[in-house]
């Protein structure tokens, strides 16, 4: 970090084209560092009505499993102070449906896709990878959801054990040979070990954070507000937590980090980049600020222009501690 800190900013003319927003996350090249988080964005049908979703750095799909998943019973949503609790429970149409139906739609719209996969055991991850083979050259990367808090209680799935993480990443990587991102949980204490394991397995980057285990109670009925009792907390409430996790992992320089958790504005996105994230994920904000994707891309450009910084990479990890 010190060499970056000492480098002088390159002064530039007032010209958008002179500003570089593109980033490399390991071997993943993105036109800009703005990624839509898994489970919070469609394939263009909805958000395409607000802006050109092909302009996004990438869009991560909902996590797909081998078979369609019904998901958890409602209520699945509960608002908390500056936060959202959800217990969707990975409802999805199954990987086959994705490949047949959603993928062509996204492709048609020119969306850069990161495909999120979720398996309940090692074999499921491999099977998923085989299925994906036919479209593998048309997607940006695979993201492995190793961290959903809504499937095992407490959010500690089998996939949080470092040795398992390494095996899962390796097997998927071996089959697909495209970049693999490991999405880890803020609920797991061994974040560093988990990242090292992912790196050893051949991952290209780490996505953090998934939602934080949370809960809410209806004091009139004595029932939990989510039918599933606990859920995952997202939104502005968790931003400081996410930022601390991103910083603590990014400074270890194990793998590039895609940072997410409560990003609702360009200022929030900049906090993550400065703290060390190579790219940022926008999740819950999509539900409230429908045009947040393009707002942040434009905002990053404006910020760099104002600060006379030529290249977004100059601010990544630039935190002065």
């Amino acid at each position, binding site marked *: 970090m010190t060499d970056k800190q000492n480098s002088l900013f390159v002064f530039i003319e007032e010209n958008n084209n002179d500003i570089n927003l593109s980033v490399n996350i390991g071997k993943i090249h993105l036109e800009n560092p703005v990624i839509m988080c898994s*489970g*919070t*964005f*469609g394939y263009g049908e*909805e*958000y395409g*009505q*607000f802006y050109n979703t092909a302009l996004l750095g990438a869009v991560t799909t909902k996590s797909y499993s081998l078979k369609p998943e*019904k*998901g958890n*019973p*409602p*209520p*699945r*949503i*509960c*608002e*908390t*102070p*500056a*936060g*959202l609790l*959800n217990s*969707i429970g990975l*409802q999805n149409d199954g990987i086959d449906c994705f490949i047949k139906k959603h993928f062509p739609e996204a492709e048609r719209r020119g969306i850069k896709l990161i495909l999120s996969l979720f398996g309940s055991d090692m074999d499921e991850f491999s099977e998923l990878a085989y299925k994906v083979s036919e479209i593998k050259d048309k997607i940006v990367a695979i993201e492995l959801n190793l961290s959903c808090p809504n499937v095992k209680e407490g959010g500690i799935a089998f996939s949080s054990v470092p040795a398992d993480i390494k095996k899962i990443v390796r097997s998927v990587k071996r089959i697909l040979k495209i970049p693999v991102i490991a999405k880890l949980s803020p609920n797991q204490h061994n974040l560093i070990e988990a990242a090292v394991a992912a790196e050893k397995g051949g991952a290209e980057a780490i996505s953090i954070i998934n939602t934080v285990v949370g809960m809410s109670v209806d004091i009139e009925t004595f029932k939990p507000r989510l039918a599933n009792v606990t859920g995952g907390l997202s*939104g*502005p*409430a968790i931003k400081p937590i996410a930022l601390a996790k991103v910083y603590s992992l990014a400074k270890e320089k194990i793998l590039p980090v895609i940072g997410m958790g409560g990003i*609702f*504005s360009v200022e929030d996105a900049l906090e993550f980049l400065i703290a060390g994230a190579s790219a940022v994920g926008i999740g*819950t904000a*999509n*539900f*409230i600020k*429908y*045009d947040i994707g393009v707002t942040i891309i434009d905002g990053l450009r404006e910020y760099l222009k104002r600060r006379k910084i030529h290249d977004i990479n100059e601010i990544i990890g630039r935190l002065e501690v």
Partner: protein
Amino acid sequence: MKLLNGEIISNERYSEYLYKMVIFSPYICREARPGQFVNIRCAPEGIYDPLLRRPFSIFDIEEKFNVFSILYSVKGRGTEFMSHLEKGDLIDFIGPLGNYIDLAGTKNNVLLIGGGIGIAPLYLLAKQAVVMKKNVFFAAGFKDKSYQKWEDDLIELKIDYTIYTEDGSIGSKGMICDYIRSNIKLFNGYDVYCCGPKEMLKTIQNIYTKSSNRVSVLLEEKMACGVGVCNGCVVKVKHVKGEFRYKRICKDGPTFDIREVIFD
């Protein structure tokens, strides 16, 4: 659908907790149809508590003034915020959302059953049915007289209606479902649309189990995105072979065939 910033034309108090907000929006007037809703941001820019938008049915559209309105009841922090907005303030909303109800090709007789704030989406439906020269009957049930002023709106439509209140303070005393049950024959051959508290909807489902009427229900559930991407707002519906599956109220609904819905 579009993300919009509309000017508030009025925010009238109908009764202690009931308000009608009129919003300027040529786009909504042009695009929206009965059964659709808007999703409203209930905090100033940059403030994240309350965080989520709130969904409200489009209550009325007055095309010649380029305004639409919502009728809302103050329940919690979001609607409390809305109740403090004034003429001239801007309101951030998205719409129209959800599937609309297409009256074309439906029966000529329409029965609307609304309980409490459930009357909100049915009003525009009634209005359109009148335009299409259908025979409309509006059956509304309330706790008390808080919807008294709404009756004036209803009268403007010049349709037949009945109002029941639990305390008898306006209309007849009693439950609207009991009225429907007792008069079920009267509405033979009507298409039915209902909206209201879950208990009422369950009762209506029961009442119509064996009838041949087409019965549609407008549902509510907590929503996060309102546009169909989060799978937050699901309802259990019947699927093949005695199975069930989840449908999204915001995108697959909010109107469903009452016979496919599984109320828990």
